[in-house]
């Protein structure tokens, strides 16, 4: 019996490989998309976790936004006696200025990401620098290079040289002193591959930084103390102890195991969503599988009926064909796995030339297969096999509907209809009895579980399945309506148009299936493009005309007057908007001291709800405060009242941003205590504000009443709108006069953001392309299923005098019609989806993008035309008699 199943499965496959070509390719392409994405993600993740210490910079990192107090420094110094090696790193934004006349196109000043290091850096990993000298040597150049006066060296990113038109050996001014460029930095172990950075990296020594006078009270500096522990010492106890003893300084103590959560999160999210698009490609491929099997079953009606008269029951026959599907699924999945290995080698460097390859270089990720590749490969293979099984089970269940009676009734009465053409929709979708219902239930559950497995989360998987199901239902509904509409159109006079419409409308022609496949595959790619366009438009075009050109940060109180005068002089009397800033942390809420719970590990955090995570974020973040007389532009009081200008208040008052107030549980009348570098101020919540964060000015979670922050270390941020031709000279003048002030150019930042977005969208579109490929394959599979009928009809047409040209036109019009209908549905659904994503995820307004939609529609029509013509052009050359003789 089992012998029969194996033998029959083999015999049925042996001669029918043509039938299963599309089946095979659909699965292979779908699996390859999945495997390519997850292999890539797994390799990068593996490299990231192997490089965890290097990425953090040490076994432990102590990070703060201000210099440590003397007590805290004493705590750290005491660590030396345990054999713990320490090194200090400061990171800040600064302006570099050229000291010589450079090339015309180059900038004389440039914003840079400055990093000051001590000897001993890096503790882990390697700093990739040119020339391959010791960093210490490059940062402290000898007399031979510096000349008579002692000088400081700087190692810079090549981008700086290009933008400023300087070379190694030139000098740049940062802060109040000049640095000699002694080398180039290629990669740093502990600089997170910055998709988004404000400027090129410049590495100097701590001594150089101190001498540059860049760091002033209240300056925005990230101070990092990196620790290397003796190999016998575990980091957890020390981490706990340091958190306790340095608590007064509000430092963040991180161990290498929980390092780079942002990077990990980014990679996780990227691979999750790319993986889901890959899964969509596989599911669309599943439609191709179902279509191939359905067509195969149609051809096998007679064989199945014969086998039943010979004593095979449905269970046995389903076993035969399921085994066959499994065999083909295994081969298809294996081919997909191999193809996936090729993709992940070829695609990432090709596509994401920017941030991803930089990241790969930094963490030393390779595309070579290793132990970590096994998981993604097996998962991809398993998903391919299960998808095959699920999508073939449905059409295979119809084996039960083929009665042996079909064959002998046909003998009795040749006109006794098609045994597979049921009338009821329940029978058509396989719901006519409990076996059918069970099969459909297994199919649905299977797809849900597969999706959740791929998504790695119940919630995301659930949303994905719901979305896909809804999309399919909508597409199916729309295709029905379109076909109904087409039926109502009076048949045109043109023969080819009339035949084409007839072909589209013919029952059993898989038209609805083709339309759904085309629709699904196009929806993904068009939606991504629509969302990207909307985001780009948001950052690019929707900027108000009077939006600031520059943000000048780290202005000291004693510089404000001089700064305002300089701006007025340079811009013909404009006044910059200057806002005082004070850094603080939450100390207590309603008298209850805030405890930031950093001990929880990653796994625990994963289980938290979004609300809890948000609350933790609001509790632990640093708040930049300001004091203002007037409610700033773009802010709206939603409850409470703003204080009267000039009013002196007994208790300081604070106005809180709406979301922050909600997450922290603050209401009007609540009290908060803020810690400003050791000093605590207490304030009463007097109003809650709604803030338009996209208004391109300085926005605040907390604004306190004037006078409340007297005596606190204040810096100012100035914003100014200037005409484009004034930009460069203004920036140069400010840097020359106030070397500690950094100029952030809003346009540059937005351009930077747009290019990151562009590269991300490119990666997503690349994976979405797999959906288009499988969609095309489904259409080819469906056309192949009707090949014989088309052949026969074209022969008949030829026999009655139709030319090859007429038949070709008929086919072309039919495919274009299919593409047009599928494309219309796809762009419609994409618009709806992009609306949903933009309004609900990004809080942006949606607008119609006719160019994207038109391009999507045109490409769809052209692609269906291409696929259709490639699938059927061989029919055109057939000679009538040769075919009719076989009839």
């Amino acid at each position, binding site marked *: *019996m089992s*012998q*029969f199943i194996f*033998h*029959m499965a083999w*015999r*049925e496959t*042996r*001669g*029918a490989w043509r039938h299963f070509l599309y089946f095979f390719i659909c699965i292979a392409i779908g699996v390859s998309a999945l495997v390519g994405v997850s292999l890539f993600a797994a390799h990068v993740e593996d490299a990231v976790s192997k490089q965890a210490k290097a990425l953090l910079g040490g076994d432990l990192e102590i990070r703060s936004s201000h210099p440590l107090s003397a007590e805290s420094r004493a705590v750290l110094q005491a660590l030396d006696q345990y054999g713990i090696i320490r090194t200090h790193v400061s990171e800040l934004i600064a302006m570099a200025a050229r000291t010589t006349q450079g090339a015309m196109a180059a900038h004389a000043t440039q914003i840079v990401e400055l990093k000051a290091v001590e000897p001993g850096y890096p503790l882990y990993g390697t700093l990739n620098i040119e020339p391959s000298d010791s960093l210490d040597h490059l940062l402290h150049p000898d007399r031979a290079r510096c000349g008579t006066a002692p000088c400081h060296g700087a190692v810079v990113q090549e981008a700086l040289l290009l933008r400023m038109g300087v070379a190694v050996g030139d000098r740049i001014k940062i802060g109040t002193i000049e640095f000699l460029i002694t080398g180039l930095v290629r990669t740093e172990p502990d600089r997170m591959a910055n998709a988004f950075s404000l400027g090129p990296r410049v590495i100097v020594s701590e001594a150089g930084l101190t001498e540059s006078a860049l760091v002033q009270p209240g300056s925005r500096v990230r101070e990092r103390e990196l620790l290397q522990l003796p190999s016998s010492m575990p980091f957890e106890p020390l981490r706990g102890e340091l958190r306790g003893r340095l608590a007064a300084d509000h430092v963040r103590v991180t161990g290498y195991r929980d390092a780079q959560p942002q990077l990990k999160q980014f990679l996780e999210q990227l691979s999750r969503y790319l993986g889901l698009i890959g899964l969509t490609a596989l599911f669309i491929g599943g439609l191709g599988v179902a279509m191939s099997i359905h067509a195969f079953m149609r051809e096998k009606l*007679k*064989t199945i009926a*014969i*086998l*039943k*008269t*010979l*004593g*095979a*029951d*449905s*269970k*046995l026959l389903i076993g035969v064909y399921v085994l066959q599907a499994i065999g083909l699924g295994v081969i298809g999945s294996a081919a997909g796995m191999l193809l996936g290995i090729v993709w992940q080698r070829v695609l990432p460097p090709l596509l994401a030339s920017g941030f991803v390859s930089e990241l790969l270089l930094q963490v030393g990720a390779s595309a070579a297969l290793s132990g970590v590749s096994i998981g993604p490969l097996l998962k991809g293979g398993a998903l391919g096999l299960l998808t095959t099984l699920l999508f073939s089970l449905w059409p295979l269940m119809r084996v*039960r509907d083929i*009665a*042996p*009676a079909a*064959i*002998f*009734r046909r*003998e*009795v*009465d040749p006109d*006794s209809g098609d045994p597979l053409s049921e009338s009821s929709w329940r029978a058509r979708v396989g719901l006519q009895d409990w076996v059918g219902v069970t099969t459909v239930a297994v199919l649905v559950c299977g797809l849900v579980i597969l999706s959740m497995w791929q998504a790695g989360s119940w919630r995301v998987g659930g949303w994905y399945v719901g979305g896909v199901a809804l999309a399919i239902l909508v597409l199916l509904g729309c295709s029905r309506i379109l076909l109904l509409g087409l039926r109502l159109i009076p048949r045109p006079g043109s023969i080819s148009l009339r035949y084409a419409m007839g072909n589209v409308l013919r029952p059993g022609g898989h038209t609805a299936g083709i339309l759904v496949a085309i629709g699904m595959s196009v929806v993904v790619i068009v939606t991504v493009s629509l969302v990207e366009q909307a985001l780009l438009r948001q950052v690019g075009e929707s900027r108000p005309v009077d939006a600031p050109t520059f943000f000048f940060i780290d202005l000291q109180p004693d510089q404000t007057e001089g700064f305002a005068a300089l701006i007025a002089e340079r811009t013909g009397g404009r006044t910059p908007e200057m806002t005082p800033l004070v850094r603080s942390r939450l100390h207590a809420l309603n008298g209850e001291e805030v405890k930031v719970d950093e001990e929880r590990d990653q796994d625990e955090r994963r289980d938290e709800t979004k609300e809890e995570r948000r609350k933790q974020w609001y509790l632990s973040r640093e708040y930049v405060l300001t004091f203002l007389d007037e409610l700033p532009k773009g802010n709206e009081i939603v409850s409470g009242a703003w204080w009267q200008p000039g009013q002196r208040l007994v208790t300081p008052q604070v106005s809180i941003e709406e979301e922050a107030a909600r997450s922290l549980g603050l209401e009007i009348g609540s009290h908060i205590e803020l810690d400003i570098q050791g000093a605590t101020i207490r304030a009463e919540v007097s109003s809650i504000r709604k803030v338009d964060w996209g208004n391109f000015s300085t926005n605040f979670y907390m604004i306190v009443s004037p006078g409340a922050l007297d005596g606190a270390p204040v810096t100012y941020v100035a914003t100014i709108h200037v005409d484009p031709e004034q930009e460069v000279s203004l920036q140069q003048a400010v840097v020359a006069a106030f070397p500690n002030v950094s100029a952030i150019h809003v346009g540059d930042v937005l351009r930077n953001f747009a290019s990151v977005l562009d590269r991300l969208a490119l990666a997503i579109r690349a994976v979405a392309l797999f959906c288009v490929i499988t969609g095309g394959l489904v259409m080819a599979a469906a056309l192949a299923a009707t090949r014989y009928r088309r052949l026969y009809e074209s022969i008949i047409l030829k026999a009655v005098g139709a030319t090859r040209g007429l038949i070709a036109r008929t086919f072309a019009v039919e495919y274009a019609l299919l593409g047009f209908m599928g494309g219309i549905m796809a762009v419609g659904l994409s618009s709806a989806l992009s609306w949903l994503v933009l309004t609900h995820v990004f809080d942006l307004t949606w607008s119609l993008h006719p160019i994207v939609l038109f391009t999507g529609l045109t490409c769809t029509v052209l692609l269906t035309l291409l696929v259709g013509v490639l699938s059927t052009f061989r029919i055109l050359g057939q000679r009538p008699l040769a075919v009719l003789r076989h009839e």
Partner: protein
Amino acid sequence: MIAVQHLSMRLTAAGRPVTILDDVSLEIPSKQTVAVMGPSGSGKSTLLGLMAGLDRPTAGSIRLDGVEITSLSESQMARFRRVKIGYIFQSFHLIPTLTALENVLVPLELAGNIAAKDEANEILQTVGLGHRVHHYPVQLSGGEQQRVAVARAFACRPPILLADEPTGNLDSLTGRHIMDLVLALHRDYGTTLVLVTHDRGIATLMHRVIALRDGRIESDQILPTTADDLREPAL
């Protein structure tokens, strides 16, 4: 032993009920050969099909070797057919994707026969196709295809053989050869044979001739004189 009682079959054709068999009762003892005759539409093929359990009657009962087959489930019926019934169609109905040998292998493998291949080869030898076992149906002539079908029907040595106009699609000489083959196998294996035919000549080779008209038995004759002719078939 085949016992048919009050068998009726009604179908709907083009929306109108059609009675194909109307209260047919008959008994066929083991090893008897029966010809079922009658004009087109008299219900003879349907009677045969119902006897093989290929369809369910509207009413009545069919007992094969004491088993009431009308109440068997699809799977039970299939398993019953495997061991009890061989069936030969007018248009052969070989599986086009299988070779002659593989077509014959199907019932043997279904029955779980360990020596399936040897037996299939042997029976193909018996029907005179030893040299064409690896040919596909399209590569065989009509007569050869029907020989394969006969070999397939006899492969499991079923006690009952049902043949629906086995010579209907063949020329008269080839038809005669097939009949000789069927009768020889009947004699060798002691099979009960029920055969639908239009051909009076073939009918006279049987023990008994049942004539149907409009779904009812019109006549039922025993032909004792011809019985002896069966002993000397010319293969």
